[in-house]
């Protein structure tokens, strides 16, 4: 009887690694609390942007809340630099540098990302303006994400009604290398509603979240969902900003996050000529 009990305990210990939940789901990208609009960067224009998020009230263990690696989310500063160039009137290319400062652990490189984003047709051609987004995420930084390489795809939907804009970015993410490579697509979203009040100061509300794998979503209390009331606008000298507090809506979310994004654009010269007005992709 005692020998049988030992076998059961030994078997249970062997099973532990397989019983833990899958990888820390990363459909909520804490480096990028940003909703992408239909409009792309103007042709020949370059934009330097820094996106920042500080977890004011988060989780105390790695793999929880916005922390998808070994560091805990509490006190984490997610710091991203994004360089975007308008290739054509409808397509832009971006490169990102991801940095992070876990509370009390210095300033770390946390990955890089490369993306193409485009809009289809011209505004007002379709009842809803449509765009697309394809991104390759390169991590190799298990302190922050247990997946090494990921692919992220987003359709972009925008509808302007008067001075209101409603934007939705459903997010589909697939691990190409690292933990989770044999799993399917994860589903997340970033979406927002904005009112154009004044050029320098306007209100909006943004929502971010992730549900886990499309075919096997996480229990609701383990999913992350956030609401961010934001202010946004353009300051003198063309400095654009978007900032506000984010509040977690589930137990699996961090509780309070402060985000502040700043961007500056300049015309540097176009590689390609104007896109044809009758075109829809290039």
């Amino acid at each position: 009887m005692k020998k049988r009990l030992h076998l059961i305990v030994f078997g249970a210990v062997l099973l532990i690694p397989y019983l833990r939940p899958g990888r820390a789901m990363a459909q909520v990208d804490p480096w990028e609390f940003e909703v992408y609009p239909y409009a792309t960067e103007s042709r020949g224009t370059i934009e330097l942007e820094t996106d920042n998020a500080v977890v004011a009230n988060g989780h105390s263990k790695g793999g929880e809340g916005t922390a998808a690696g070994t560091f805990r989310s509490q006190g984490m500063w997610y710091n991203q630099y994004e360089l975007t160039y308008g290739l054509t009137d409808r397509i832009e290319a971006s490169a990102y540098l991801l940095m992070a400062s876990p509370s009390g652990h210095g300033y770390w490189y946390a990955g890089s990302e490369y993306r193409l984003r485009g809009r289809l047709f011209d505004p007002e051609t379709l009842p809803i303006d449509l765009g697309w987004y394809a991104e390759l995420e390169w991590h190799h930084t298990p302190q922050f994400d247990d997946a090494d390489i990921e692919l992220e795809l987003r359709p972009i939907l925008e509808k302007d009604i008067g001075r209101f804009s409603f934007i939705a970015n459903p997010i589909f993410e697939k691990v190409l290398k690292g933990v989770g490579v044999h799993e399917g697509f994860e589903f997340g979203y970033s979406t927002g509603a904005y009112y154009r009040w004044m050029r320098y100061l306007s209100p909006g509300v943004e929502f971010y979240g992730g549900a886990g794998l499309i075919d096997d979503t996480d229990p609701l209390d383990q999913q992350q969902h956030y609401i961010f009331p934001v202010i946004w606008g353009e300051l003198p000298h063309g400095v654009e900003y978007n900032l506000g507090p984010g509040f977690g809506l589930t137990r699996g979310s961090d509780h309070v996050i402060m985000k502040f994004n700043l961007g500056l654009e300049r015309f540097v010269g176009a590689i390609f000529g104007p896109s044809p007005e009758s075109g829809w992709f290039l």
Partner: protein
Amino acid sequence: MKSAIPTLFAAATLLVAFHLFSGRTAAEETNVASIRFADHHFTPQTLTVTAGEPLAVKVINSSNETIEFESFKLNREVAMTPGETITVRLPPLRPGTYDFYDDFHQDVPEGSIIAK
């Protein structure tokens, strides 16, 4: 746990697709107006249009500088190289005043589109 979210998303996508392919495109039945940029200012500075009708604004950059034709209230932003002409399509506007300006040159006087 199986959740309703993917199903809801699929349903929303189908609704959007239905709306896209059943809707009349706003590009139909459009009035056309023109704005020219030269000598560091827009002409006309005030453009009066009919409210409630789709509008296409042809913007001509006759200057020798690159500008960014932008309107905050209309949510439009397009960079234009010297000599370039673009068409900015707008939905039916409510009566009111809508700004436009050159975002690359803050000293260029702001213009306005007045929908009546």
